[in-house]
């Protein structure tokens, strides 16, 4: 009985810390202004929407990988899927949750767009270095 209570409590805190961790990842990229060309390519003018996520992820696959982004990107992908599942399960009962999770999904999309921006500038630098040498 005690073990079951500890399990439930620790799963609740685990979920809370997971959400907060992912929010800290997306918050760290919120102040980054997207370059003109990333805005053109992704169609994100000033604010992203949750629906942009899949498209930006597809664009990300076309760019060379940056190992430093990999794990953060996985965590945000997982968070996005979790939000999608929670949205379809809970938003009918609690409409305010739907708008909150949509906001969160939008911040996930913006995070991925920032990663795309960094990858593009890294590719640029690599090309420039190659052409110099």
């Amino acid at each position, binding site marked *: 009985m005690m*073990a*079951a209570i*500890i*399990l439930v*409590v*620790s*799963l609740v*805190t*685990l979920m809370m*810390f*997971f*959400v*907060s*961790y992912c*929010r*800290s*990842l*997306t*918050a*760290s990229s*919120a*102040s980054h202004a997207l370059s003109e060309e990333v805005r053109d390519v992704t169609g994100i003018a000033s604010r992203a929407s949750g629906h942009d996520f899949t498209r930006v992820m597809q664009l990300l696959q076309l760019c060379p990988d940056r190992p*430093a982004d990999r*794990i*953060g990107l996985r965590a945000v992908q997982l968070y996005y899927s979790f939000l999608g599942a929670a949205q379809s399960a809970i938003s009918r009962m609690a409409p305010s949750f739907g708008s*909150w999770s949509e906001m969160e999904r939008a*911040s996930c999309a913006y995070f991925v767009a920032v990663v795309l921006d960094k990858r593009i500038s890294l590719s640029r630098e690599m090309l420039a270095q190659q052409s110099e040498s």
Partner: protein
Amino acid sequence: MQPGSVELFIWYIGTALELAFVVCSIARKSFFAYFFLNLYMLLTVLADVARWLVLRKFGFSSEQYMGCYYYTDALLTVLLYVSLISLYSRVFGELRFAKHMRLAAVVLLLGTAGFSYAVVAHSESRLYTGSGFAYELSQNLYFVGIVLSYLLWGAVLKLRETRTRLVQIVLSLGLYFSAYAASYALYNVAPQYGVVRYAAGAIGCLLPLAWCITMLRYSEESRLVPAQLVAVPR
């Protein structure tokens, strides 16, 4: 019974990640800024080596291995507790009550040790197994760790902390404590599932991995917008 190849693989990965964190800290010139976290990781590597040597010499089911495992585990949990308190000191660094907080942390640690001793002393079955106290202290400190990391996270939000590294280190620690406690509880609730055997080891890899990412991705100067950390906008 010997640990399987999957368990050994997870163990080696965990040790490599612990070393990687120390290397990342040194490379990013943050070793002394996060001294207790680095000390914890270094001692975890040493404990892993000691456990491996004892395992090779005496075997998995031996009393020597059990003793070595639980005593090093208790020592590491105390050090992780100290690391958590060092994070408190960083968060509350500019406030006047930092000194009182350290005193409270020592009192809480001694209280937990006293409580653990009392539990072991009243349990006849554990009294005669030498590692009973170490086991009990470890378990109780993990629970205290969850509560303290939850409170620290509350303080981070309240004080509108902007240091990205500090925020992510605190959150990783909270994730680790919660996941570890959940895995222990799951082991007690459903020991028949094979995956439960690997859970604790795999979770052990998460903390150094998350800290490595934080060290590599962000500099000490990285800042985030504190309002975006709050789940429900105020």
